[in-house]
């Protein structure tokens, strides 16, 4: 099996699985209990929390809360800011639906004004246009560090500084595809940040939300007051612990895997381009973990299924929205012409991806292309 859909979800590190199993067996108590078992778990959670704050380069007084998913983290910020009619939100429709959906929904419900960030053809932010969007009325700026479809990378420090120079807006960053893969460093310009476990070798069902000490976000869930009142729910300690293990392993090997994937990506890109000149790569300034392209004439889902019977797994659009056919607003925002939305392919690498895997992908991809190109000639 050759898996090239790591940006959707990736496999667990063996150490994570081991820790998880042991913790599920041993750490069954409720961290809110008064007895010593509960007390010990509470202390462990707090130490995991401060480890995460350190990994992110945050201040000790800042918040890091555990959530069930990055979707929950993004929703908590967008819905928890208590925006009112007339407030402006700056966001990009190219971002993941867990950001765009709550933002668009909120704007409709409370009559907030939406301002859309325009992207350049290479997927980076158009700085002139972006700068023009910023005014006093802007209350939230939502950014994505690495776009999950294009892999395009934004210059987070420069952009967040620009926002803070011109506005007092809350700056939220979705760092789901970057945390553990490329250096992610918090600065005083970032108010909140979402990260998740299952993209970096941890289990599903656990994610994190960084909040600056001075944040004004109200919680989504009320109840027992866990997570400093920011998310009532019994803490899933085994998942929290497994998340930390995955994060620490990822960051320890980050540079090595980054360099390895730069090479693998380059190999796949040049070899596929050579064999199939019709391929269109447009996102140059992108993460080595994600790259995407358009293959005109052949629907990407047809290609996906032909590769799947050869046990090679890729993605045609984001796994969360692959039911959408035809026009895709995310791809439109990425400047991909509508006629090519059905021809969009994403290949995403993981820490386990080897150059041999890549060779096999190239081989099978070209074989499938040869089998299907008669469809393309017609189109």
């Amino acid at each position, binding site marked *: 099996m050759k898996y090239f859909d790591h940006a959707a979800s990736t496999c667990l590190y063996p150490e994570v699985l081991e820790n998880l199993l042991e913790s599920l067996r041993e750490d069954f108590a409720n961290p809110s209990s008064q007895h010593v078992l509960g007390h010990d778990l509470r202390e462990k959670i707090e130490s995991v929390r401060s480890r995460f704050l350190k990994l992110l380069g945050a201040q000790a007084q800042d918040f890091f809360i555990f959530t069930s998913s990055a979707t929950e983290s993004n929703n908590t910020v967008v819905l928890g800011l208590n925006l009112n009619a007339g407030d402006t939100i700056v966001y990009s429709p190219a971002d993941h639906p867990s950001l765009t959906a709550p933002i668009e929904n909120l704007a409709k419900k409370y009559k907030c004004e939406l301002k859309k960030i325009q992207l350049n053809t290479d997927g980076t932010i158009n700085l002139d246009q972006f700068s023009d969007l910023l005014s006093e009325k802007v209350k939230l700026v939502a950014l994505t560090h690495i776009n999950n479809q294009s892999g395009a990378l934004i210059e987070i420090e420069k952009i967040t500084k620009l926002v803070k120079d011109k506005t007092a807006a809350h700056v939220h960053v979705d760092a789901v595809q970057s945390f553990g893969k490329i250096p992610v460093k918090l600065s005083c310009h970032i108010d909140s940040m979402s990260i998740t476990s299952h993209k970096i070798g941890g289990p599903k069902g656990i994610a994190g939300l960084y909040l600056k000490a001075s944040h004004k976000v109200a919680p989504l869930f009320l109840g027992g007051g866990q997570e400093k009142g920011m998310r009532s729910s019994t803490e899933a300690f085994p998942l929290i612990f497994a998340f930390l293990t995955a994060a620490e392993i990822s960051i320890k090997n980050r540079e090595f895997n980054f360099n390895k994937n730069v090479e693998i990506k380059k190999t796949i890109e040049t070899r596929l381009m050579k064999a199939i000149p019709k391929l269109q790569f447009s996102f140059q300034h992108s993460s080595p973990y994600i790259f995407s392209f358009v293959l005109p004439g052949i*629907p990407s889902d*047809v290609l996906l299924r*032909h590769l799947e*019977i050869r046990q090679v797994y890729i993605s045609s659009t984001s796994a969360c929205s692959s039911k959408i056919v035809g026009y895709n607003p995310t791809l439109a925002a990425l400047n991909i012409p509508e006629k090519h939305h059905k021809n969009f392919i994403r290949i995403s690498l993981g820490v386990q991806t080897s150059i041999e895997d890549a060779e096999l992908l190239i081989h099978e991809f070209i074989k499938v292309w040869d089998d299907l190109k008669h*469809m393309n000639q*017609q189109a």
Partner: protein
Amino acid sequence: MVFHLVISIDELWLKGKNQRLYLRSAIDHINSVFKNYHFDKFSQKIKFQRLYYSSPSPYSDELITALTKVPGLSYISPSKVMPRAPNEDLENVYAEILNELSFLEYTSKTFRASVRRIDQFFSQHSTVIEREIGHRVITRYPRAKVKLQKPEIEIDVRILAKEVSISVNSYKGIGGLPWGTTGSALTMLSGGFDSPVASFLMAKRGIKQSFVFFHAYPFVGREVLTKIKKLVSELAKYQRNTHLYIIPFGDIQNLISKNCNDEYRTIFFKKYMVELANLLCDRLNATALITGDSVGQVSSQTMENLHLMDIASKRMIMRPLIGFNKLEILNCATAIGTHSISIQPHDDACALFASKNPIIIPDVDYWNSWEREHNFDSELLAALDKMESFSVNLRGEIFKKDFFSFDS
């Protein structure tokens, strides 16, 4: 109280010596519907070519709906039989009628009452009782209106020697001939609007059917199978039990399109589907194929192209929609409950491969020489080997067959 259901059989008067066979098939089918939808004991009698069912419990809406889909039944009329009070007092009957009509509280409908005195010694005149019923209904339910011609509700009262039978509604069945009395066929489903309607029309004529779908994976995904199963689930309600066969067709389609002129792709796909369906019919002992073709609807349905399919098939191809307009087909699809399923979008491999200018009048020489030069027998048999089979009961529940068996 006893609950009765009177069922009349369609077209029985047309069948001279074969009446018994037709009646038997209808009864067997009705009894299996009862076993699936009625959970109390019941008894059954045949009188004057009508079936009389009696049970201590009322008949559920699910049972009635299922019966309206049984081929060969023309009317299904539930009725209640209650003991007659002494002194020709009909108060309890009136009360029961008002009770049965409680839905008139919220809806406005037209009605009429018809009373028959089977007991000739009953002295009150029928028209007097009818007027009394009408008066009481209007007083109790001001939304109800009397209408003597074609009313929406027919209140039927029969006064017997010791009992009174009341019926407030009668349901129209689909009519036609009982299931399996005319033979068996294989219906080719595409996922569109037409083939389910074709299946329904032939079910009405008593044809026992199995269903086949050609799945062009990996050119189309697995989502379409969910849709096909939903359609078969609906169509199975017009059958007593049925089967669904899914034949992989992607490889054959790719092979054909690589080897023939673009504009012939669709009709060659169809030809090999017809051939595969015939091979399956051999195994199923089915006499005919059923398709949703309608002449001239799309390019593959010109008379010339349909004729090529007839040549490719060693069995009769039944095309009940041949003279239907699209709107007529859509209306029928709505009536039988398949419209809302067919309308859901699905991947279509034929569209994927379709030529911009598909052939309308085929060059028979090209067709024949292509046929001579290409032999896909082994590919067809391989596809049949990889076929998936499901059995479907009359509730529309689908079960995957663990091993392949043809005991349909």
